[in-house]
Structure formats: structure tokens, C-alpha cells
């Protein structure tokens, strides 16, 4: 494989961003992440390339971590692309969502494959700053949230910049490989904790997060809570001197902050009245766990080899689950296909609380093994926090339902990703990635989606009006939408089925299906089923 391939994942969204004002289909945005997915799955492990003429010399490499992040990250980017509202895709739409989305994607993918500090920093900055456009909204509160986010991002960025200066002079090389040849300066460690800590939202640096998560548009939250937040974690993994002894102070500090984050996230999250806020604080809590684990590994150089891959695994799991929850919540609130969404949401929640037989559970088991009896209390605490927040989330879920119809593509995409999100960690074979195992599934999805795109075009052309407009307008006008749907192959199957189901399920007293009782029953049934499966497998 030509190593120049490595440059393609960030390059494609970057190039597309330049022409974003012309792109009116969300499939462009969707497709922008495809090369990353391909590279993650098929890329030759440990291939690397140096471009000495680019900026101050850029270096890319594709190690295992990078591949994992690419695979899962790109899937979330694709998912987010499917949820961009049609308004934002129009030419002249307010807020420059397409541009921000593509630039943030480019930055995110760039930092994942970066092999030197500066490339990482460039990607990180590009991603962090572009996300402003994802968070910005027309309302006063949304604008304020976006502004707060921007201020924090800038501060984090400058902290990172300063750290880079110290590191560069310290090791006289930009490459991550040569970074730890000499012990890092203490100031650089502090700055690294600060710089990435903002993105990871460790307590004290988290103030931007809850409002950003509640007020931003769905696709913004999806990428923010998934790939972008984990970029901070990836930063720590890349920069911090694991395996070499450092002043225990830093590890302790991070551990302490992490624990505070877990507790704080739980306590505040539990009293939130909005589902999204609960998810936001759940993120803080979860990232607290990560911070604590990183802190622990810093102070236990001997155990690093065992712990770090599991942290990555856990991080990837969370990277998938949290955005899925946000999307599911949104679908739920829009009232589409309740019968599918509720169990799926519950399944995701279970995975989040590390219920056995879910990916979360598997990862947690691995973690316990890796920790080798240490930090049992933390695991317990984190488990409690996750459970509390999940219960609160599900509790709020049913209240927020609003009967509005929504597009089917997004639902489909979500459902396709669901198993990956929930069970991905099972694809690990003996702690090494076998991401290729997922390939057929993903290829199938991609093919389906491409087929859909073609189908849509094919259907759209014979319509009397200009087809470019048609592709946008249906989302506004109910009539066109209906006609559109009838012509749509997938819908032709789904629609009667759905009608029957919904008719039957909402029959008694016109009650919506997701009453508290119903959901409790569903949940119990699922638990039983899972329990059964568990027992059988033993």
C-alpha cells in the first residue's frame, strides 16, 4: 500500500470543506469519513510517512491505536452526517455547519494518525476551533454556550502550545517516538494535563460541557461526545510518559480529579431534568473514570502494558455508545419507531453500565483483570455512578416524547451501528484488534447506503420539478414527503408494518406505548432474556 494513502483521510474532508458551500447532499459529508474507515480496517499496520516540506515537517503513522480510533471515529462521523438537518445543508444556510463539520472531521482524523506532536496539535486545534460552528445556534443561550466552549478551547490550546514548546526543546524532536528519551519537564506535564483536561472535561475544566451538550444541534453533540472528546484522551495516551517513573504527584492529582469527576458527574447528573443534561454529566463522570485510570497508570509504570490497551478499548466503547445514546434520544423524542428505539436505547444503556454480555461488561472484565485487584473501589464507584445516571436517563426518557415524524435514513444508520456500539469490544481477540472482523458488516452498510443514495436520485429525477430542490424540499413539506416515502423502497416495506404495530400498541385509550409501565416491562423482559443467555452460555 502506498504510504501516501495515510494522508487521505484528513485530506478529503479538508478539500471538501473548501467546496462545502456547493455541497447540498449529506452524502458528501458522509462519504468524507469513508477513507478513514477504509484505512482503519484495511490499512497496513505500522505504516508511516513523513512529509518534511509540510509545515515544519509532518509525520503520519498508523499504529494499532490509530487504527482503532479511525474505525470507530469514522463511524460516528458518518452517523453524525446522517443527522445534519436539511436546513443546514442548503446554500446560504446560517452557521456554516457543513464547513465546520468537515473541518472538525479533518482535524480529528489528522490527530489520530499524527506521529509527531505538531501534527497532533494542528489537528487538535483545527478540530477544537471548527467545533464552534457545530455548537453555534441561533438562540442566545446556544451562542453563549458556543462562546464558553471557544474560550475554554483556546485556553486549552495555548496550554498545549506551551507544553509543546517545552517538549520540543526538551527532546529536540517532534516525533512521539523520541519524546520520552529524556524525562519530561514538570511544567510540560502540568500544561498537558490542563490542555487535554479541558477537552476531557476533568472537574474544574468542565464548565463548557453541560451547556454545549444540551444546546448544540444533535450532530454536533454526537461528534463532540464521541470522537472529539476522546481526542483529549488520545492526547494523553500519546504525550504522557507511561512506563517511565515520574513525580507521583501528577498521577495522584489526576486520580483525585478523576474520582471527583466521577462523583460530581453522578451527583449533579442525577438531579437534571433534561435527558441530554443527564447524558452530559454521565460523560463527565465517565471521563472522570478515564482520568483516574490514566493517573493510576502514570504512577504504576509496571502495569502500563496491561492497562493501556484496556483503557483504549473502554474509550472506544464509550466513543460509540454515548453518541448512539444521543441519537437514540433524539429519535425517541421525535417519536419515530418507538418499538425499535426503546429496546435499543435500553441495550445501549446497559452497555454503558457494563452489564454482562454487553461490550461494556466485557471491557470492564478486562479492566478488572488488568488492574489486578487495584482500584476495586473506583470500579465500584464508577459502576454506581453509571447506573444512577442511566436510571435517571431512562426515567426522563419517556417524559420527553413528542409525536413528530422523522426521516428514516438516520434511523436506519443508527440501527446498523447499534450492534457495533454495544458489542464491539467482543471483537477483540485476546486484547489485539481484529477490526477486520467487522469489515463485512460495515461494507454491507456502506453498500446499502450507497444504494440508497442511487435509489434516491433515480427516483427523484422523473419528478416534474428540479430535482435538486426536490431533494431538499421534502423535508419541509408534508405532501412531498409522503409522496417521496411511497416511492421509497425501504419505506414500502416498513410503512404498513409500522402502521399495524403502532395501531395495535397505542390502541388502549390512545396511550402512547412508552408509558413507564411498558418500558419497565420491556426492560425486565430484556433483562430476563439476557440473564437466560448468560446462564446458557455458562
Amino acid at each position: 500500500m502506498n504510504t501516501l494513502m495515510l494522508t487521505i483521510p484528513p485530506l478529503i474532508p479538508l478539500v471538501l470543506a473548501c467546496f462545502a458551500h456547493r455541497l447540498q447532499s449529506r452524502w458528501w459529508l458522509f462519504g468524507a469519513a469513508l477513507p478513514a474507515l477504509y484505512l482503519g480496517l484495511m490499512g497496513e499496520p505500522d505504516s508511516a510517512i513523513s512529509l518534511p516540506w509540510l509545515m515544519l515537517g509532518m509525520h503520519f503513522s498508523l499504529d494499532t491505536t490509530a487504527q482503532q480510533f479511525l474505525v470507530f471515529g469514522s463511524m460516528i462521523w458518518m452517523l453524525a452526517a446522517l443527522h445534519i438537518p436539511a436546513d443546514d445543508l442548503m446554500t446560504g444556510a446560517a452557521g456554516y455547519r457543513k464547513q465546520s463539520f468537515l473541518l472538525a472531521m479533518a482535524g480529528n482524523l489528522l490527530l489520530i494518525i499524527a506521529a509527531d506532536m505538531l501534527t497532533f496539535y494542528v489537528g487538535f486545534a483545527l478540530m477544537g476551533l471548527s467545533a464552534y460552528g457545530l455548537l453555534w445556534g441561533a438562540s442566545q443561550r446556544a451562542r453563549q454556550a458556543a462562546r464558553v466552549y471557544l474560550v475554554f478551547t483556546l485556553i486549552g490550546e495555548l496550554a498545549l502550545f506551551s507544553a509543546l514548546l517545552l517538549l520540543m526543546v526538551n527532546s529536540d524532536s517532534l516525533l512521539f517516538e523520541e519524546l520520552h528519551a529524556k524525562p519530561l519537564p514538570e511544567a510540560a506535564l502540568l500544561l498537558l494535563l490542563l490542555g487535554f483536561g479541558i477537552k476531557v472535561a476533568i472537574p474544574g475544566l468542565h464548565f463548557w460541557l453541560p451547556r454545549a451538550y444540551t444546546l448544540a444541534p444533535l450532530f454536533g453533540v454526537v461528534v463532540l461526545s464521541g470522537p472529539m472528546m476522546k481526542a483529549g484522551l488520545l492526547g494523553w495516551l500519546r504525550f504522557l510518559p507511561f512506563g517511565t517513573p515520574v513525580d507521583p504527584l501528577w498521577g495522584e492529582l489526576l486520580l483525585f480529579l478523576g474520582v471527583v469527576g466521577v462523583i460530581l458527574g453522578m451527583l449533579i447528573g442525577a438531579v437534571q431534568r433534561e435527558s441530554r443534561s443527564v447524558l452530559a454529566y454521565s460523560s463527565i463522570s465517565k471521563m472522570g473514570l478515564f482520568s483516574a485510570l490514566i493517573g493510576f497508570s502514570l504512577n504504576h509504570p509496571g502495569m502500563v502494558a496491561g492497562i493501556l490497551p484496556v483503557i483504549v478499548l473502554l474509550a472506544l466503547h464509550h466513543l460509540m455508545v454515548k453518541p448512539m445514546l444521543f441519537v437514540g434520544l433524539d429519535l425517541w423524542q421525535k417519536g419515530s419507531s418507538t418499538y425499535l428505539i426503546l429496546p435499543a436505547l435500553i441495550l445501549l444503556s446497559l452497555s454503558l453500565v457494563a452489564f454482562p454480555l454487553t461490550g461494556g461488561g466485557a471491557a470492564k472484565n478486562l479492566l478488572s483483570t488488568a488492574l489486578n485487584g487495584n482500584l476495586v473501589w473506583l470500579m465500584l464507584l464508577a459502576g454506581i455512578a453509571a447506573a444512577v445516571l442511566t436510571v435517571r436517563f431512562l426515567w426522563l426518557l419517556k417524559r420527553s416524547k413528542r409525536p413528530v415524524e422523522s426521516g428514516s435514513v438516520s434511523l436506519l444508520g443508527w440501527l446498523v451501528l447499534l450492534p457495533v456500539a454495544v458489542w464491539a469490544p467482543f471483537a477483540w481477540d485476546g486484547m489485539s484488534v481484529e477490526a477486520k472482523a467487522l469489515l463485512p458488516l460495515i461494507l454491507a452498510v456502506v453498500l446499502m447506503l450507497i444504494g440508497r443514495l442511487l435509489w434516491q436520485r433515480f427516483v427523484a429525477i422523473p419528478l416534474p420539478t428540479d430535482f435538486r430542490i426536490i431533494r431538499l424540499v421534502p423535508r419541509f413539506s408534508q405532501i412531498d414527503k409522503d409522496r417521496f416515502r411511497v416511492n421509497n423502497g425501504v419505506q414500502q416495506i416498513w410503512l404498513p408494518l409500522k402502521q399495524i404495530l403502532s395501531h395495535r400498541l397505542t390502541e388502549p385509550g390512545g396511550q402512547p406505548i412508552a408509558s413507564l409501565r411498558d418500558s419497565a416491562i420491556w426492560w425486565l423482559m430484556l433483562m430476563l432474556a439476557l440473564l437466560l443467555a448468560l446462564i446458557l452460555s455458562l
Partner: protein
Amino acid sequence: MTMSVWLPVGILLSSFIPGVLIFFQPEERHRLRTWLNLLGALVKLLLVGVLIWGVFHEQVFETRWTMAPGLEFVLHADALSVLFVSLSTLLWLVTTIYAIGYLERTPHRSRFFGFFSLCVTATVGLALAGNLFTFVVFYELLTLATYPLIAHKGSPEALRGARIYLRYTLFGGLLLMIGAVWLHTLTGGVEFVEGGILDQYTNLDQSTLRWIFLLLIVGLGVKAALVPLHGWLPQAMVAPAPVSALLHAVAVVKAGAFGIVRVIYDVYGVEFAAELGVLTLLGAVASITIIYGSLKALSQDHLKKRLAYSTVSQVSYIVLGTAILGPLATIGGLVHLVHQGVMKITLFFAAGNYAEALGIHRISEMDGVGRRMPGTTLAFSIGALGMIGIPPVAGFISKWYLGLGAVEAGAAAWVVPVLIASSLLNAAYFLPILYRAWFKSPSRPWPADRTAGCARELPDPLLWPPVTTAALALLIGLFAAAPYSPLEWAELIAGREYRQ
């Protein structure tokens, strides 16, 4: 052999002759004037190309002319001068095109373009000056050539701004001259030599040298707008936009900064200057200027004034880089000489376009202008992001090397916080502008809409210069490590200065 003598002169004459010819053109012959301007700019570009090639291959270009006993007029091209010459030449071409578009149908164009060419001649002369005497000559000539440009509009404010400018610069020029004469009498001639010459004169009194340094730096600091000598710069923004652009990016402010670089590296020698202990003071002044300029910029609503204070702050990056001992900081300072020029000229072009097309002079009037003038606003945004130091725009490269230099020299404790604070302040005064331009929607009609009948947002000569320079700012950042890039030159110069 003859070429090596005539090339520097030719570079000067390529703008001087058109300038003089333009003076005598009647107002209405604007086609001829345009041709003269562009021809001069292109010829100069060509000659500078030859110069770059030659200097890179270590050829010597030198012209000498004895004006008075002991006072030689020397034009000499070394790597540092090439850096500045190519910057001025390139940006002159762009600015000329812009000015032709900007000043269409205004009075006194012959006078304007005449002085405009003389201004560039003086700037290029400064860059090519081979000794302190020649430098002083061109330094004063620059003052003379710029004054009519600032006063060009002839309005009371323009005259007032020009007068203040003159007060400051004549004072500075005088101090520079006194310092130069003093140094001259002690050494018998001050040639610019890479690595400095003063460390060879071991018999000189160190405190005298410190006093001379003070005189020289204060004299140059007036043009470089070091606090508290910066007062003229915000006043001079009354000039027409192309003049402001040139003033802030290439000519005057840069001349001061370039002079400081010359004095420290090629007269004193940076190591010797550090030995004298004068660099710390200079670094402190530069830091104060950086912070003060940004703080003042925050409170300005007038767009050009905000940009002017931003210049005050940004040009001191160059001084700061010079004041830190070490090749990396040197690279940072030198490369910022180019980077700041390209970025700031973009910003001023854009500001001029806003005023020209829609009558926007104040930031509070800029709501939603991004949709109306996307090309200009995009260019402005790139310039502004570069000023903040966002990668991969050129400003980041400067900031990176400055920071590295500071850490290397052990000055991280005070320089890095200054850089960080400056970046934050830059963000604080540039990002709101970008926010207004892109994200807000126009709340009231534009002050004066003059774009009727334009195919694009603006006529081509106004639109393309900012777009070009913005692209340039992006490209020299993106390909900073490529051969012949400004960074490469800065590294070459730093290598020669530190005699590595």
C-alpha cells in the same frame, strides 16, 4: 562582475524612475500611469528574483559610492536584505494593483503614485543598505516619502495624522542619526557584517556603547512603534487603505523593526549585545508593547484603529525575537517580519474593501458582512486567525519559533506567558469581528452601498489582492519547511548570524 554592481542600483531605480515619471503625468492619463506602475513592479520583481538566486548561491552584490570622506553609500545584498527586499517587492506589486482599483476617480493620483513609488524605493533602499550611514539616509527618505501619502486626503484629520507622524519620525530619525554618528566616530565606519563588528573593538567603553544602543533603538523604535513611541501609528490610519496597508505591513513599521534587527545582529552582534546586557531591556520593552498594543486594540471600535494597535503589538514580536539570544528566537523574529507583513496587509486590504464597498468603518457595523462580501471576509478571517497564531496560517510558525527560542534561551518564564497572553488577546479582539461578520445577520442597512453594478462583490483589483495575500499567508505557513520559503531564509540568516 558589472551585474553584481548594478543589480542593487537597478532594484532601486526600478521603482524610482517610474515614480519620478509619474509625478509629471497629467491627472487624466491613468492608463499610462498604471502601465508605468506595473512595469516598475514587475521589473523589480524580476531583478529581485535574480538577487535571491544569487544570494542563495553566495554571490556578492555590492555598490559603493563615496558621498563624503568616511561616508560611503553602500548597497549590499545579504540574506537578511533579500528577505526584506522580496517581501517589499512582492507586496508592492499587490498593493499597487489594489491602489489602482482603490483610488479610481479620485484626485491627485499622479502625486499619490509618485510618492508611493518613492516610498517603496526608500524601503528597498533600507533593505539593501550596506552600512549604518546608508541606512540612516533611507530611513529619513522613508519619512519624507510617507508623509505626503498619509496627508493625501488633505482633510484636517489627515493633516493632523500626518503632522503627528512627522513629529515622531523626525525625532526618531534625529536620535538614530546622533547614535549613528557617535558610533561612526568611535569605529570609523559601521558596515553591516553578519555577526556584528563591535566585539572586535575591545577598547571601547561599554557604557558608551550602551548609550549608543539606546539612541539607536529609540530612534528605530519610533518607526517600529515600540511603546511609548507608538503614538503616531493609530493616528496615521487616516491614510487611504493602500497606504495603511503598505505602512503597516512593509514600509514604515517594518523599517523600524528591520533596523533593530540590523543593529543588533549586524552592528553589535547578538552575543555582544547580550554581553552588554541591553537585550533584556529591549525584550522587556517588546513584551510590554505586545501586551499594551493588544489591550488597546480591544477597546477600539474603529476597524482600522484596532488593526493599527494590533500592528503595534505584532511588530514587537520581531523585536522580541531579536532580543532573545539564540538562533531559534532569531528565526522566529525574522520570519515574523515576512509573516506579519503578509497577514497585516491582508487585513488592511479587507478593511479598505469594507469601507470602499459598503462604507463600513466600524466593527459594530460589520454584522453579517461575511455573506455580502465572502471573498474579502474569508481573506480577513485567514489574516486574523494567522495573527492569533492558529495553525497552519503563517503566524503560527513565527509564534512557534519565538516560543522555542524563549525556552531554549531559558527565558520561557516570561516570554511564553507573554506569547500566550498576546494570543488570547488577539483572539479576544479578532474573533468577535469574525463572529459578527460570519454568524450575525445584518441588523441595519449598510452605511453606504457602492457596489451597484459589480459582477462580484467588488471590482477585481480590489478583490484579488486580499485574496492573494491571504492565500500566501496560508501557503507560507503550510509549506514553511519547503525550500525558498521565508522560514528557510530565516534559518539561513540565523545560521550566518550565529556563524554556525
